[in-house]
């Protein structure tokens, strides 16, 4: 099969960038989306062109490194699927595919489809952790945790930090990411001592980094490859407003 692609090419952070059209042949339905780009890149290389830069690593949907805006949808058309797990069988060869980088002021484009998401690390660094020295912990069975709490923590902790929520949000907000981490820790006993300040600090950091505010548009949850719901945002808001410690 043959596809027409419109790919964002940008030489560096200061380049203006533009969409460039390519056709790529010899694509089979069982190829992944990134394997399709691999094929294109090998051809570009042999033609003496520079290959298209895009982030990827584990290629099994867990590291959160890949992330492309495909036809205006973060991670493409398949629900609950990262770009690397998307397969070409989802695409009609008659329709062109437009591929853009994540767009948000805190995510500056590094090159082509690669963006700098280190702002998300800053959010975690500001408060998304529990202070405990290695070797100082009590026995793991010292505090039983109700299974529903553990399950709720896990559901939020499934976040892979890909940034699709930011990319999809009409406001460019990172609230789903921030809330997922805060709620993961807030659901478990070790997260209690710093619960309120953690929530406040992380949200403040997120605002300071230039992310937009949350207006509950819900696009983040639709885009999230790990299906984290906006209820975590409500829980974070509750901790920010009512749980000051």
């Amino acid at each position, binding site marked *: 099969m043959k596809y027409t692609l419109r790919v964002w090419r940008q030489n560096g952070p200061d380049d203006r960038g533009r969409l460039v059209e390519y056709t790529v042949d010899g694509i089979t339905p069982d190829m992944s989306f990134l394997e399709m780009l691999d094929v294109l890149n090998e051809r570009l290389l042999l033609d003496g062109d520079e*290959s298209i830069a895009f982030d990827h690593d584990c290629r*099994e949907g867990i*590291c959160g*490194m890949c992330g492309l805006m495909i036809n205006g949808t973060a991670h493409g058309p398949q629900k609950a699927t990262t770009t690397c797990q998307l397969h070409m069988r989802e695409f009609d060869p008659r329709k062109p595919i437009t591929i853009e980088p994540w767009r948000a002021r805190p995510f500056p484009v590094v090159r082509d489809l690669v963006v700098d998401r280190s702002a998300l690390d800053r959010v975690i660094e500001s408060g998304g952790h529990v202070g405990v020295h*290695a070797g100082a912990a009590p026995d*793991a069975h010292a505090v039983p945790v109700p*299974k529903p709490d*553990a399950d709720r*923590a*896990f559901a939020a902790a499934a976040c892979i930090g890909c940034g699709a929520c930011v990319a999809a949000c009409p406001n460019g907000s990172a609230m789903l990411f921030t809330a997922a981490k805060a709620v993961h820790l807030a659901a478990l006993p070790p997260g209690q001592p710093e619960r309120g300040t953690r929530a406040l600090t992380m949200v403040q950091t997120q605002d300071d980094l230039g992310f937009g505010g949350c207006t509950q548009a819900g696009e983040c949850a639709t885009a999230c490859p790990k299906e984290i719901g906006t209820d975590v945002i409500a829980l974070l808001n509750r901790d920010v407003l009512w749980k000051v410690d």
Partner: protein
Amino acid sequence: MNYTEGTPLRDTRAPDGPLETRWERRRLAARLVSPANRRRMSVIVVGTGLAGASAAATLAELGYQVLSFCYQDSPRRAHSVAAQGGINAAKNYAGDGDSTARLFHDTIKGGDFRARESNVYRLTEVSGAIIDHCVAQGVPFAREYGGLLDTRSFGGAQVSRTFYARGQTGQQLLLGAYQALARQIHAGRVVSRPRTEMLDLVVSDGRARGVVVRDLVTGEITTHTADAVVLATGGYGNVFHLSTNAKGSNATAIWRAHKRGAWFANPCFTQIHPTCIPVGGDHQSKLTLMSESLRNDGRVWVPARPGDPRRPAEIPESERDYFLERRYPRFGNLVPRDIAARATKAVCDEGKGVGRGVYLDFADAIARLGRDVIAERYGNLFEMYQRITAEDPYSTPMRIYPAVHYTMGGLWVDYDLRSTIPGLFVVGEANFSDHGANRLGASALMQGLADGYFVLPAVIGDYLADGPFGAVSPEAVDEAEDSVHATVAALLAVNGDRTPESFHRELGRVMWDHCGMERSADGLAEALKRIPDLRADFWRRVKVTGSGSALNQTLEHAGRVADFLELAELMCLDALHRAESCGGHFRAESQTPDGEARRDDERFAYVAAWEHTGGTPVLHREELAFTAVRPSERSYR
């Protein structure tokens, strides 16, 4: 065979005497660095997987200044994140008779008696504290309704000692370590440098004192110095091109360290994981693991008649071959990975395979436990399988085939995790120490975290207490930097007609065919002939466009392939010299009449540590002594 024998090697750091108290005695004997001096000492940690992130965070907690590097855009993405099944610990929470001694025994036996007793004992000893620490960090392990931690059983074990967080245990443990690291970054005790790749080691006055790195965004090449260097850069399974490793996983850091004087131990010990999604086509870029935990409830089978064209549901029980249950009635589908992988290869070689694989069938488990229970246990894995293959594992059996997954070999380290270069420590999969010739499922996470949270922090002070080490020699820095600049320039200068990917693919095929699940003297000799040719071809014909002073993923890949092309040769040489079968290393010439691995303890009960000379490699043997477990035939029948 083209190598020479060097002097024997001995691990001088492990205390003698009773195994049970060795670690305690070692910790007591290790010198400490006072808190005031720790603030003045710096440690470089390369890699941010479970071992690297936990080591960096813990060393910073102790007060050392830490500089942390990773090639990913965030420390949280290191490939430990992809470990699915779980982490072992001898907690005996299931009350089924587990103990430190039993986990020790299982690990030694699982490693086919090619691991060091003292290291393995220590690993099992600290395993419980890992779980305690992770729970205290907020890692959301699976729990029972009573609120206590749930466990499950894994290959090679007859007890339930594997803690897990659905199918994302590695992710959750890594996030715990990453958060601990993030806390230290925020406190200013760790400087984190993501998107930065280590390209050489600086050795000054015989000590590892720094690294030369390339900033992957700007292409800038810089040197960073410290009092000690820790490599936590993972395994080298990507030498096979297709593996379950991340695309970026590479051997460059350990290989460059090897070329600077760190000996490489047991390079041929590769783990082939039995349950991966089979290769689909030529442009396949990676293989996806289906967690070993699936073998708890799934049954592996093939049609008894080769080439049976019927759909799986149409084949009656009597015409199915549940070959693991048939050959290994005691462990059944839960035999260790190497055994399951080889049995799978054997039935496929007989022509019984189904579309490049064998069935992993959940029909019985669904009938017994109900669809909901299976969905709760494996739902995310089933979804992943369906996304990739477009087949529904609830209604039709999965198809699986073995794939390269983990490398037990790595840089040689002593009991204190010191390599043969003073000041260079190696932790996690990057070292060789704890798994022998085969790693048990759910033990990689255990080892990575044991090394990073507990072992390294306890013993690194004993080395640093020798300091301060004086200024780093400018000549050593210049020499290392020049060599990195030269390599980058050389890769860009060839301007040939083949992509780095095409060389990687070809190397992978050679390695899979000749140094994969079954190895033979002829095949290895063939590989040893072809690899140098391929390497020469690489330096004549590789094409890298773009520049060295910007983000250039083709250049990154080319550099990694260049190192794989050298490492592959050493792997084949090691595999050829070890004319026995053990664990994941199966030599066709050394098998029992019924096709099981035949170990040769008379000749090969040693660790093979290879020294790089620039010419013929030198083999140093570290003899293995077994005092607590007597080497026996490793039977799972």
